[in-house]
């Protein structure tokens, strides 16, 4: 071994050692693709199914001769149904024996109206109620929509001589078809009990006579009907969330939602409006799912079963839910301004948003109107 070999060997080692060393400061943060433009989702509660039941009772026998006892059921916030009907029932529930109620279809005269709202040049709304249809001797209907009102008047004549006041409960159930003999055991989302309410006196003038009636109005309740108040579940629009748009992907994550009433589920929509703010198009994110990594688990049946650990029985809530969509094309969310999480009726049309908005958010302008 010569000294020359040793020097070569030593030189190679030094070169190798220098090559193995990195003297520059490492880059520790490297951007990965597009940023996400985020928005908040807040509790909304617009357009939930709601209504009133007015019990109209003549003051005197003279009044009763021309103005019979009547139930007036007014409902709005309903989604139009394509695979079933809203069935209205009158029921008698004995407080001492609530387990054996009796139900009768609440046949009466149904008036469907639509409220068309226009705006003055100053921006003041001008509501215009348009009568859509009037149908006698019906207890079921399918109509609904954001401006649709259903008004059902039930009296002794429409019930075949039975006084509506013989019943103490008004119930709306979801049925596959009209003509059911008994209300569905599951989907009973709207009801009113003939207790409490606010009273007023109605004066009606007919010809030369003036009639007086006592009107007691109660608000309907939306949720899951129970034979006793202890068994019922009252739905309240709760929750919050956060959404984001990253490139062609939109994600909505929400939490602390109330479990939907039986027959309902949550879905997410993105809405595009015209110049005066009228919705003209929707992008369907579809029914909400469990969050990552269980996005394949739909929460559509969270109303009737614990489909995922995020769905709780007590309290009746959904801890977390999510929607995700990936669309093609350049600027696919251009023009879309609103994000809605709605409460959809399972018997309603799948591709149309229900009027019941539980959470809402606004798409950042950098996306919707850059």
């Amino acid at each position, binding site marked *: *071994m010569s000294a020359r070999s040793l020097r070569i060997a030593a030189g190679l080692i030094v070169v190798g050692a220098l090559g193995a060393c990195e003297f520059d400061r*490492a880059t520790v*943060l490297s951007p990965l693709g597009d940023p*996400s433009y985020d928005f908040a989702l807040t509790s909304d509660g617009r357009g939930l199914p709601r209504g009133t039941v007015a019990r109209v009772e003549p003051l005197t026998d003279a009044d009763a001769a021309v103005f019979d006892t009547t139930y007036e059921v007014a409902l709005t916030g309903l989604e139009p149904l394509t695979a079933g009907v809203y069935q209205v029932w009158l029921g008698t529930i004995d407080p001492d024996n609530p387990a054996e109620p009796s139900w009768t279809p609440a046949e009466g005269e149904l008036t469907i109206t639509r409220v068309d709202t226009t705006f003055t040049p100053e921006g003041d709304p001008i509501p215009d109620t348009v009568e859509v249809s009037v149908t006698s001797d019906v207890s079921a209907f399918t109509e609904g929509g954001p401006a649709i009102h259903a008004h059902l008047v039930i009296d002794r004549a429409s019930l075949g001589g039975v006084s509506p006041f013989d019943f103490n409960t008004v119930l709306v159930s979801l049925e596959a078809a009209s003509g059911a003999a008994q209300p569905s055991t599951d989907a009973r989302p709207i009801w009113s009990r003939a207790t409490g309410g606010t009273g007023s006196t109605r004066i009606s003038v007919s010809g030369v006579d003036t009639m007086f009636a006592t009107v007691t109005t109660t608000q309907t309740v939306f949720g899951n009907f129970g034979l006793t108040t202890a068994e019922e579940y009252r739905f309240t629009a709760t929750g919050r969330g956060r959404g984001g748009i990253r490139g062609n992907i939109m994600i909505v994550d929400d939490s602390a939602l109330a479990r939907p009433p039986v027959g309902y589920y949550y879905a997410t929509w993105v809405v595009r409006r015209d110049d005066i703010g009228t919705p003209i198009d929707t992008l369907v994110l579809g029914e909400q799912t469990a969050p990552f*990594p269980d*996005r394949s688990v739909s929460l559509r049946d969270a109303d009737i079963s614990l489909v995922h650990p995020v769905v709780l029985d007590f309290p009746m809530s959904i801890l977390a839910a999510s929607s995700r969509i990936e669309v093609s094309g350049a600027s696919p969310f251009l023009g879309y301004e609103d994000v809605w999480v709605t409460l959809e009726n399972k018997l309603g049309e799948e591709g149309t948003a229900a009027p019941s908005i539980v959470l809402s958010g606004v798409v950042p302008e950098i996306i919707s109107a850059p």
Partner: protein
Amino acid sequence: MRIRTALLVTSALALPMTVSAQWATQQFSVTPRGGFMTFDNSSGIDDAPYIGVDAAYAVSPFFSVGTGLTVSRPQTIGDYFISQLTFGDTTLYLAVEQPLMMIDVALNAQARYPGERITPFLNAGIGYYTLDLDPQVETRPERSGGISGNIGAGLLFRLGEQVGIQLEVRDVIFTGFERDDLNPVAAAFNNTRYPEDFAPPPAAKETVHNILFGIGFSFVPRARQVADAGEEDR
């Protein structure tokens, strides 16, 4: 039984060989070495050069024991550690890397089959490795480590009585490896909103195999003296 058979076979093969002075019994050798280290794909550590040194004592012409030191400065793979940082209503997604100082010390044994110019050998050893994380990224000194092992093979090309060049491949095995220890991203900044839009890293493993390709320069300080003494004896 199996070991005894292996020893007999090795001895039989060795008998006709001419043992060079470099592999004389009771000789020390020093082998500085360097090369490239490819870390296990699941480790989250990027490939990097390394340097090291082995010191060995020849128990016999065919067997030596010693120590080894391997040092490398790899980077973690940022795609494995993704952070989301939110500024107002904008969230940035970032790959977070950090430089590491990897040190592996080991007690090694080497079995070899000495030849005139080329000596194939097998290495095996056990030791301890440490991974020192970057204190600026971690905001404090952090170290991870565990028992290591290595097993490898190579060829030594003899250049003279004292010096040889060796080429080797070695599997440096880290046990008790915790990839999460290398993650500088606090839980609050983990990517929770778009997890499926970034390729998930391979499943983490507790035992990772890192393949090391190296070249070394074997130097036997007393080989010349032993050779000279042998000639004088003749």
